[in-house]
């Protein structure tokens, strides 16, 4: 962090020397080993099928985009169809978490009501609760409502703020905002809703960003519940479609499978690049307090 202040362009900085150079070499080497599987998958997705397992190296000796075009059309629908399904569920989940969790967080952080401490403790406890403990009755209820093979079992719980982790994250954040702001707004005649919408929410942007990005990544990656509730081949998401890919093509067509795996990781990687500041800050604040 100390380097932030003196902005010498990268190439003009003096090279680190001695033990520091060694440290950097070790860190880069270790990072390469860590990322090797990913890089290898990218490189393999660009190789002709028969080269994939003959070349453990990263540089493809022959490059082709066939894997991408084959993979895109390998299943019943084009892969874009599954990407869209995932995007709809993920987008709704993000919106739902932002609305429901920020409402609850404001009440916990700023308002007084009977048994507040008890409810807060229950909320914290529900973060630790394994999803599998509630899934069997939930499935039975959703099945009775004819909600299997719809997006509702995946999205409706988010509108009910069941991802309590994000409530906690936002409570922690709102508590750091000075109360004088609320009071000043109240003196000017603002009610609770106005204070929430026009004072607290705009200042909460970093916490909202963290919530949005984490919800995006977790929902996009989620396999257990999507695999459970979406079984009809017409409404699969990316995660479930990839699994079908594995089942239908068996051990044969790894090139197209790698290509589509890369495509499925693309949005996560994009969000990671765009929002890593918020991701890291979010992890750090909930981890520490």
């Amino acid at each position, binding site marked *: 962090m100390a380097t932030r202040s003196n902005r010498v362009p990268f190439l003009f900085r003096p090279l680190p020397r001695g033990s520091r150079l060694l440290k950097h070499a070790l860190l880069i080497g270790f990072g390469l080993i860590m990322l090797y599987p990913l890089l290898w998958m990218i490189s393999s997705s660009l190789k002709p099928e028969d080269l994939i397992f003959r070349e453990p190296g990263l540089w493809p000796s022959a490059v082709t985009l066939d894997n991408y075009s084959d993979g895109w059309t390998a299943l019943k629908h084009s892969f874009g169809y599954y990407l869209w399904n995932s995007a709809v569920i993920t987008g709704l989940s993000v919106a739902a978490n932002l609305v429901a969790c920020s409402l609850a967080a404001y009440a916990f952080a700023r308002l007084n009501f009977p048994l507040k401490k008890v409810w807060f403790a229950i909320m914290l406890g*529900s973060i630790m609760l394994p999803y599998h403990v509630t899934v069997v009755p939930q499935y039975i209820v959703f099945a009775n409502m004819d909600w299997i093979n719809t997006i509702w079992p995946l999205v409706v719980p988010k509108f009910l703020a069941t991802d309590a982790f994000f409530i906690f994250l936002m409570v922690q954040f709102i508590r750091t905002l000075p109360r004088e702001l609320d009071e000043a707004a109240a003196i000017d005649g603002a009610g609770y809703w106005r204070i929430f919408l026009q004072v607290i929410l705009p200042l909460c942007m970093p916490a909202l960003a963290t919530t949005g990005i984490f919800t995006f990544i977790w929902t996009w990656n989620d396999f257990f519940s999507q695999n459970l509730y979406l079984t009809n081949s017409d409404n699969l998401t990316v995660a479930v479609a990839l699994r079908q890919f594995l089942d239908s093509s068996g051990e044969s067509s790894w090139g197209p499978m790698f290509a589509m795996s890369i495509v499925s990781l693309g949005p996560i990687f994009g969000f990671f690049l765009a929002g*890593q500041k918020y991701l890291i800050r979010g992890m750090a604040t909930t981890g520490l307090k």
Partner: protein
Amino acid sequence: MSESISVTPERPPAAPREAARPPGRRRRTTYANVHRRREARTAYVFLAPWFVGLFLITVGPILASLYLSFTDYSLLEEAQWVGWDNYSKLFFEDTRFIQSLKVTTIYVVVSVPMQLAFALALALALDRGLRGLSFYRSIYYLPSLLGGSVAIAILWRKIFGTDGLVNAVLAIFDIEGPGWVSDPDTALGTLILLHVWTFGAPMVIFLAGLRQIPQSYYEAAAVDGATKLRQFRSITLPLLTPIIFFNLVLEVIKSFQSFTQSFIVSGGSGGPVDSTLFYTLYLYLKGFKSYEMGYAAAMAWVLLLLIAGLTGVNFLASKYWVFYGDTK
């Protein structure tokens, strides 16, 4: 509360109207009381979605699954009350259940400490003033974000396949590796490795924790002639124990529920020979493949008690090693 009361008299138009209200029971309609009640009412409105979710999506199903765990239920027929049958079957007859407990326990006990050790080591290496810190942090953090995805599980299955990347590398040294994911002796190991690979998330938390330790402690220790090792043992480690504890509790809970990795790597079976049959995978197979939902509900309750018990033990044990100093 008290602040908002001190604010309200500043609003003259509201006061007379409130005061003019007919007195409530036992003259409790003081100004502060009205205000407090209105605040509580607003709070409940804000919390309404969460309350509905808590009762319909969380508490209701927990109780329902407790009831189901004492029944035989398959979604098609009425639930049949069977008493403790499901539980006694779990522990005394079902060898696959015992196997799944064993597999999951080994997975948690081996992978969590290894993952945290990597996380701590890298966090220490990256701490304070290192050039390119945010670059390294991003690289090491990336696998944590991707690790839970189906795509990475597919990749893992291929890397450790009979003709996969690992064996291709070993072949360079003339070593013929086993089919890592198809050999019951090594299959679980590949999943443990996958979990260790995602050490970036706890590492980020460690980094934030390290930054909370005042630099002056180290300076004072250095003046007193403490070596780097001594500084680590006497300053860094004790002050970091709350963070280690936090990561430990979180990762134990999380890894006990791992599902996707074993599901994809084993092709949904927990094989070879049940060597990767994670607890949640077995629960899924029982509840949603053979539709023994009462049985699956019993497994869910055992899981809840196990995780609660483990967390409890963690908290009790923390008294002996976690240091909550007067650092604030």
